[in-house]
């Protein structure tokens, strides 16, 4: 307990850093995920190819490597951003590939007749997807999206190696101050649990709400 109380401000900064990384990256991942998923089911071949390429590349690249590419690669094109922004880009794009695939499998659970009915009424592709197909896919994607975002929260630890203040990275400072390594990590783990359990709780709530409206 002493480790925590003595180093409260270090822990707190790390915790807030991880929380910020998770929330901002999750927002980016969800936004991109919806966009790329709509590309992947669109009637335009070029968009479908782009979506497939995006998912294939990002899902199959180790996240650490992706961080290196963003942090070391983008400055070569004179794109110099704060490390936090770089990290959000890497985490958000990486996670968007997984969100996209979850959404796509959700879209596939909606009977094709629903989309046909929407199109036969004159709805555009965007309207068909947004008004008819995605709302019905929602129920079946809530739980897996929760899992993807929990993975994102834990993956954000990699940003610590790239000069971003986050929870896991706090162990170095605390360790240098001479505190025992085991308890240092126990409190770090508790910090992650708070975030991941909060995500679980939110998604349980969302899931319960859709179950009622059925």
């Amino acid at each position, binding site marked *: 307990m002493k480790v925590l109380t003595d180093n409260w401000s270090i822990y707190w900064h790390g915790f807030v850093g991880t929380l910020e990384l998770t929330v901002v990256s999750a927002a980016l991942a969800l936004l991109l995920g919806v966009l790329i998923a709509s590309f992947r089911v669109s009637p335009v071949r070029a968009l479908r190819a782009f979506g497939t390429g995006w998912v294939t590349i990002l899902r199959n690249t180790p996240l650490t490597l992706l961080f290196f590419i963003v942090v070391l690669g983008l400055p070569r094109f004179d794109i110099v951003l704060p490390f936090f922004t770089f990290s959000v880009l890497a985490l958000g794009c990486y996670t968007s590939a997984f969100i996209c695939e979850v959404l796509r499998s959700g879209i596939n659970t909606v009977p094709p007749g629903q989309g046909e*009915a929407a*199109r*036969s009424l*004159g*709805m555009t592709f965007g309207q068909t997807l947004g008004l*008819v197909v995605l*709302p019905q896919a929602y129920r079946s994607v809530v739980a897996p999206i929760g899992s993807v975002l929990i993975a994102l929260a834990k993956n954000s630890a990699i940003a610590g190696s790239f000069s971003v203040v986050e929870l896991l990275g706090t162990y170095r400072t605390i360790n240098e101050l001479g505190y025992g390594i085991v308890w240092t990590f126990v409190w770090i783990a508790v910090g992650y649990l708070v975030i991941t359990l909060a995500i679980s709780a939110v998604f349980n709530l969302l899931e319960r709400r859709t179950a009622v409206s059925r």
Partner: protein
Amino acid sequence: MSTAVFPPLIELSGVNKHFGDLHVLQDIDLTVGRGEVVVVIGPSGSGKSTLCRTINRLEPIGSGTIRIDGEPLPTEGKGLAKLRAEVGMVFQSFNLFAHRTVLQNVSLAQVKVRGRGRAEADARSRALLDRVGLASQEDKYPAQLSGGQQQRVAIARALAMDPKALLFDEPTSALDPEMINEVLDVMRGLAQEGMTMVVVTHEMGFARASANRVVFMADGRIVEDRSPEDFFGAPESARARDFLSKILKH
């Protein structure tokens, strides 16, 4: 009856379509006049459903042309969406939007596609639901309705767009026998009012009583295209005679 002249509304000429090696539509020429009711019958696998679905391009075609009201069918995008709004479709499996209430099902496209206000759309929807005998069901979800009720909502939903023509793709094939008539009643009413209709069905009674023309398809071709009196009274082709002998027995 077959001599009545209808100005053409739907024109298919030289339409071909393949599913892989299967040549499902072979050189289809078909003209449906404004206000005409054309019933398409034929054995399963004859291509009649596919034919119906090509008219609003739910199925793209390989070659040939399809015109609606003189305009060639656009291939994709906004132009196609706009044209589809003019041609209503009623499906075998109803395809009501499962996450929306009955009223919302009928109003949704009026608001989003036709650009009507919510109140105006709902008023129109209620009038149409009343017409198909479902005024009291507007707050229910599709899953709470019987098949026949769902199909009548689907007809109301298609009518709400004020379409130039309605396509029916086996509208009663998924229904219990006792519910078929409530749907056919609505369709008979529409036919009498002069709605242009293309109806793929196995309901020979409807074809006999309400059709201006009967189109008999087999193996991807139109074999006969005649008035119901002529077709049912004296089918010309052996294929049609064989088909009729099988289905009219019971």
